[in-house]
């Protein structure tokens, strides 16, 4: 048997690839990591070809959670698809809802009252906090800190889930946004509880940021060059860690983000540690945004009085609309033919497209690094496979 290294992809700079034609090294070993694997963040499979412990080839296999969300979207009404958007990136249901509601509002030319825009921003930033906290817990789990950081992460997550549950009725699958606003208004008690949570947030990541083992495991691992990132369609914290300051909250300026003052953290090296640190810094910026939004929330209705939910029909046309979700650019492409259901309903999944460069990042690293790199991409299979 003879093997050769894969040709068309260049190794990322900093990766060490050993020659295979060495009398001491025998055959290459092909390992299927997944679909049942403790560290693959769901039912994700990687066919990894190893030379000893070094990865020489990696082919991801998708589809183990393909739930034909887009076909269901064609058969359900516009509003009927809203609960399904919760189940895309199931950690961040509020931002998925907002992305879809924004797409339908742009398709039909609806406006949203100001209080609803502020409430959407508050919920989106709470979701970002929740997601990045869970990310920190999961990536440390992948590094081998079995369970303890995840316990802390989920403790913080439970506080935010309590807020979501009292506002929308459900911990995870909130189904909260509607075309023209939000489903329910936030009471003063809820806003007070949100302020208290925001003021008390932050102890969790202080324990981790200067940790030597985390730095040793993640610095220099999985470097992503900026040019490759942009060409491969990478978005979100992974793109910003590679040095490209492209954040849709600033670039597109949707919602009331142009009125809020926050910075966009950008990394220098593009390695796993930068991806981790960018998310930690984004958490701090989210807390800043939350303080401003909670402080300047105006009164008024949360639902456009002219909005019609039952029997909603959009005029014929199409739209592609996107927002900055916690994992990247989540977009919806809708084609309407004037009927009650969309003709084509498409989700642009950030996690799926961020995995384009998985092989490039992992080549030359050891198999233990593969798990950490996958964790740093921060995928959720509901979004990858839809």
């Amino acid at each position, binding site marked *: 048997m003879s093997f050769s290294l894969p040709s068309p992809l260049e190794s990322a700079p900093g990766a060490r690839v050993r020659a295979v034609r060495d009398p001491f090294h025998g055959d290459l070993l092909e390992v299927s990591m997944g*679909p*049942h*694997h*403790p560290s693959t963040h*769901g*039912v994700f499979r990687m066919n990894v070809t190893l030379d000893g412990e070094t990865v020489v080839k990696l082919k991801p296999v998708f*589809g*183990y*959670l*393909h*739930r*034909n*969300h887009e*076909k*269901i979207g064609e*058969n359900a009404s516009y509003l009927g698809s809203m*609960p*399904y958007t919760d*189940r895309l990136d*199931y*950690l961040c249901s509020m931002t998925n809802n907002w992305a879809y509601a924004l797409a339908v509002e742009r398709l039909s030319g609806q406006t949203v009252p100001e209080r609803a825009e502020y409430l959407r921003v508050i919920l989106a930033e709470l979701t970002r906090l929740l997601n990045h906290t869970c990310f920190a817990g999961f990536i440390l789990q992948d590094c081998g800190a079995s369970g303890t950081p*995840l*316990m802390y992460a*989920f*403790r913080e*997550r*439970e506080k935010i889930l309590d807020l979501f549950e009292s506002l929308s009725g459900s*911990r*995870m*699958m909130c189904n909260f946004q509607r075309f023209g606003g939000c489903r329910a208004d936030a009471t003063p008690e809820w806003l007070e509880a949100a302020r208290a949570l925001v003021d008390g947030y932050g102890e969790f990541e202080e324990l981790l940021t200067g940790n030597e083992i985390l730095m040793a495991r993640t610095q220099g691992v999985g470097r992503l060059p900026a040019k490759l990132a942009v060409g491969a369609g990478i978005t979100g914290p992974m793109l910003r860690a590679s040095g490209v300051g492209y954040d849709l909250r600033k670039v597109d300026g949707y919602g009331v983000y142009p009125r809020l003052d926050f910075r966009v953290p950008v990394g220098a090296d593009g390695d796993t540690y930068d991806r981790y640190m960018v998310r930690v810094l984004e958490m701090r910026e989210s807390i800043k945004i939350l303080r401003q939004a909670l402080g300047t929330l105006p009164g008024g209705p949360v639902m456009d009085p002219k909005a019609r939910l039952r029997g909603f029909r959009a005029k014929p046309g199409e739209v592609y609309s996107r927002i900055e979700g916690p994992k990247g650019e989540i977009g919806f492409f809708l084609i309407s033919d004037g009927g009650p259901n969309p003709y084509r309903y498409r989700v642009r999944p950030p996690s799926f497209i961020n995995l384009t460069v998985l092989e490039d990042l992992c080549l030359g690293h050891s198999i233990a690094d593969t798990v950490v790199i996958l964790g740093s991409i921060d995928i959720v*299979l*509901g979004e990858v*496979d839809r």
Partner: protein
Amino acid sequence: MRDPATPTAETPTSAERDELRRQGILLTSIEEIYNWGRSRSVWPLQFGLACCAIEMIAASMARFDIARFGSEVFRPSPRQADLLIVSGTVTKKMAPQVVRLWNQMPEPKFCFAMGACAISGGPFKQGYNVLKGIDRYIPVDIYIPGCPPRPEALLHALMQLQEKIRGQRLTGPSAPPHLQAGAACDCPVPAFGGHDLEPPKNPALWQPPVLVRKEGA
């Protein structure tokens, strides 16, 4: 062996047993102690498919704490696990792997269908790649409804499983499969066909319900 469920004049009542226990004397049967030990140390498999997996992880975290029920460790290997919690949608692409994992688990083993998707396909039921319920291929002990069920619902299901284990008789025809000589333990693994899984269901385990529709309905 005398059946402890039917008290006779010679069998101590539970009040008498409590009195003895307070004096430091434990009077029990092998069956009770065996089942008590088994039910208090059910180790689940680290197997999360979709959204319900996050609630399963939340059930194992500090707030809901599945560890106090004995499920301290979620084993990554099926060879070491007792309980398969199918949490999330089982797609047709994933179904053969689920059945293989089930086959690799040694007896005694149990299965939860957590969430609407694992019970019957859930909200994604009308789907070309969605298996309409994992009980089409493997036997399920407890069904947990919800989308997703709260972590407390998972804990309630675990308590129900503990009651079920404690009620198992070790001898006789209703003994659990691992104590029956010659009981079949492997479920057939479906194969990928051109349009669907082959077979689309395991007829020994699941049949579609037989209904007669009212005229005009």
